[in-house]
């Protein structure tokens, strides 16, 4: 029985394209990106200039307008808001969707074995006499791991439960911070890091470089830790009590996913705002 609760900290490879491993988290993030791109292009073609928007346009105007005015309360500048809104909104929507799709049915339960056909015995929880027999007879954990490999991997898995994904997002975020710093303050922004005018400023610059690196780590681990912990929590609860009890935890995960997307976007915005302020 212990072999059925399968928790993997690293994503599992589905297939390789010319030596490039396509993992289940990467596959899911491509699906989310494709959905966002197709949906938004479709929605853009449906936009009408009207005083009373309805349906889809209404929903999109609420999201975009709400985020725009939220960003404006932090930047207090129309120029900065229009410059930062697209990337902050992009971060927020992409992370939010990635956090939420994980809670849909089918995630972690659709198993990909790489072979055509339906393998009923490979569904986790389905009883298989040979497997149970093998588990009972084996005393070593090595045997259990072999069985996990044989049962295939989950086809879909939330992308933010993969450390590679969150590190990539954090790198993009910190790169954007530096980009806007240089764009708004010019070459003077570099003096924040490398400054030979006095020994004190030189060491402050070193500390600033360290703090940028720690920003990458804290962005990446905050998002990864929260989402992976949620995944493990729901896996453990559904393993112990499969009916009814996981429901409040799924509600909690919807909330946590929203808060983490908000925190990621908001911290990026606050750091960009700090980088573009005039140097004191």
């Amino acid at each position, binding site marked *: 029985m212990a072999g059925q609760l399968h928790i993997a*900290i690293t994503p599992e490879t589905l297939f390789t394209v010319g030596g490039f491993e396509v993992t289940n988290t990467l596959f899911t993030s491509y699906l989310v990106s494709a959905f966002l791109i197709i949906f938004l292009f479709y929605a853009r073609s449906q936009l009408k200039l009207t005083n009373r928007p309805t349906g889809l346009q209404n929903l999109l105007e609420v999201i975009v307008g709400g985020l725009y005015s939220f960003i404006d*309360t*932090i930047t207090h500048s129309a120029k900065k808001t229009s410059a930062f809104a697209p990337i902050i909104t992009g971060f927020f929507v992409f992370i939010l969707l990635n956090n939420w799709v994980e809670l849909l049915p089918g995630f972690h339960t659709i198993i990909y074995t790489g072979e055509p056909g339906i393998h009923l015995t490979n569904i986790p929880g389905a009883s298989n006499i040979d497997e149970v027999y093998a588990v009972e007879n084996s005393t070593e954990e090595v045997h259990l791991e072999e069985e996990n490999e044989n049962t295939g991997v989950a086809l879909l898995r939330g992308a933010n439960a993969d450390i590679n994904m969150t590190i990539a997002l954090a790198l993009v975020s910190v790169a954007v911070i530096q980009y806007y710093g240089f764009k708004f303050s010019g070459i003077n922004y570099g003096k924040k890091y490398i400054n030979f005018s006095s020994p004190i400023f030189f060491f402050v610059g070193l500390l600033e470089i360290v703090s940028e690196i720690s920003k990458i780590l804290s962005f990446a681990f905050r998002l990864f*830790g929260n989402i992976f912990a949620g995944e493990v929590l729901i896996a453990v609860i559904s393993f112990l009590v499969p009916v009814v009890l996981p429901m409040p935890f799924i509600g909690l995960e919807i909330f946590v996913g929203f808060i983490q997307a908000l925190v990621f976007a908001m911290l990026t915005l606050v750091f960009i705002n700090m980088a573009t302020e005039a140097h004191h």
Partner: protein
Amino acid sequence: MENLPSALTMSIGGIGPAIAIGVIVKAALESIGRNPEAGSQIQTAMILGVAFAEAIAIYSLVIALVLKFV
């Protein structure tokens, strides 16, 4: 017994952030109660502060996961 290090990491590492988040939210609620008009601004700052405090708990979670799975 082999799970003890990760369990201890998580439980001891959770103490500090729990107290910190409690203090942050307490202060924010008190100031919202005193000045309800500034509620949205205080809420934004509060979420930021909570996120920073929570990051410490997340670090211990990551260490616990590394001890458990790697």
